[in-house]
C-alpha cells in the first residue's frame, strides 16, 4: 500500500544519490517497503517506479522469480535483500530473474543496511549489477 508518511532524511538523501547514478539502485524503508528505485533500474525492472509503486521488498523480489545457476528458485536465506533487511548485514548474490517485461536477465544483487544511528535501522539499499 502506498505510504505518504514522511521519509527519513537518509531516504531523501539516498534517493537523490541514486537519482544521479547510472547503476540500478533500490531503496527500502525500515518497514520493508520498496519506496524508490532510480531511472537506471527501470530497464531491469521493466517499468518505472511510478508504474510499479510501493510494495514490500519481499513481494517485489518474488515478482522476479529469482533463480540460482541451476535454475532452482533462490532460497530466501540467499537473497541479499532479505539478508540485509533481516540480518542487518551486507550481502551479494548472482542470480537469474525474469523482469516485469518478461525478459530473463542475469544479475548480481548487492544489498546493505542503513543505520541513521547505531540503534536506528532505517532500511536497506539494493544495487543490481548487470552480468
Amino acid at each position, binding site marked *: 500500500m502506498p505510504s*505518504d508518511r*514522511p521519509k527519513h*532524511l*537518509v531516504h*531523501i538523501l539516498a534517493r*537523490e544519490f541514486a537519482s544521479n547514478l547510472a547503476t540500478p539502485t533500490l531503496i527500502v524503508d525500515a518497514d520493508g517497503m520498496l519506496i524508490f528505485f532510480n531511472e537506471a533500474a527501470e530497464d531491469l525492472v521493466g517499468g518505472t517506479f511510478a508504474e510499479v509503486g510501493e510494495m514490500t521488498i519481499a513481494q517485489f523480489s518474488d515478482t522476479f522469480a529469482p533463480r540460482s545457476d541451476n535454475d532452482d528458485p533462490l532460497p530466501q536465506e540467499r537473497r541479499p535483500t532479505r539478508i540485509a533487511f533481516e540480518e542487518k548485514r551486507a550481502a551479494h548474490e548472482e542470480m537469474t530473474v525474469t523482469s516485469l517485461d518478461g525478459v530473463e536477465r542475469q544479475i548480481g544483487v548487492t544489498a546493505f543496511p542503513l543505520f*541513521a*544511528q547505531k540503534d*536506528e535501522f532505517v532500511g536497506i539499499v539494493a544495487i543490481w549489477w548487470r552480468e
Partner: protein
Amino acid sequence: MRCGGNTSCVEVSLDDGSVFVLDAGTGIRELGAELAERGTQKVHLLLTHLHLDHLEGLRFFAPLFDPGVEIDLWGPRSPVLGLKERIRKSFSPPLFPIDLQDTPAKVTFNDVPNVPWTIGAAELRASLVVHPGPTVGYRISADGSSVAYLPDHEPALAGRFEERTRDWISGGSIAEEVDLLLHDAQYFEEEYDERLGWGHSSVSSAVAYADAVGAKRLVLFHHDPTHSDDRMQELEDEARSFADDDGDPPTIAREGMVLDLSA
C-alpha cells in the same frame, strides 16, 4: 542597525506562560536577561544543531547561572557522542572557564524523539533536515497555531523538491501547512552558486520551499553576516518578487521582531 547582528535565537511563548527558546546563538544573551527579569523558572531550549552560531550564546545565558531555574534542553542525536558531551566541549578550556556541570541551573539533556511529543499545551515535532552534521528543524503547535523553525537548511541539495510530494521533502513533515515558517534564506542567487553544499538556502529556494510545503507565512532567516541592512532590504524585495501575490509576502527577520500567532 535595522536587522540586528546576533546569531540565531527565537523565543516562542505560549498563552499558558510556557517558554520555548529555539537555538542558543548570541541572541540568547539578551533574551536570558529578559527571562531573568520576568522571573521565568522553566525554559525549554530546543537546539537545531551544535554549530557555534547556534550554541555560542549559551555560555552567557543568565538562567543557566540561576539555581532556581530548570532548563529542559533538546537537540539532535549524534552517532558519536551524547548531547551533553557535545555541548560540554564549549564549556571547557581553552574556550570557557566554567565546566557545564558547575553551572547552577538544573539542566536536563534530551535527544529529540522521532515521533511528536508534548510539553504542556504544545505539541512538538523534530525532523532531521539537509545541513552538514546532525541537524533538525522544529515545529511547535499550540492553541490552534503553529510555527516551524528551519534556520539552517539546504533542501535543494536533495534534489528538486518543487517536483516532489511533501513526504519526500526535507523537513516537509514539520513545515507542512504551518502558519509561520522561519526558514534559511542566507544567500542571493549569485552567492548561492558559489556556496552550494554549505547547508544554506538562496532566497528563491526559501520562497519555493515555503510554497512547496504550503506554509502560510514565510520569515527569511539566518542572515549572512556580510549583508548590510540595505542588502537585507534587497533580499526581502527579491523574495517578494519570487512569491505569489496571494497571501502574506515574505519578510526578513529583524532583531526584536514580535509575531502574534493567536488563532
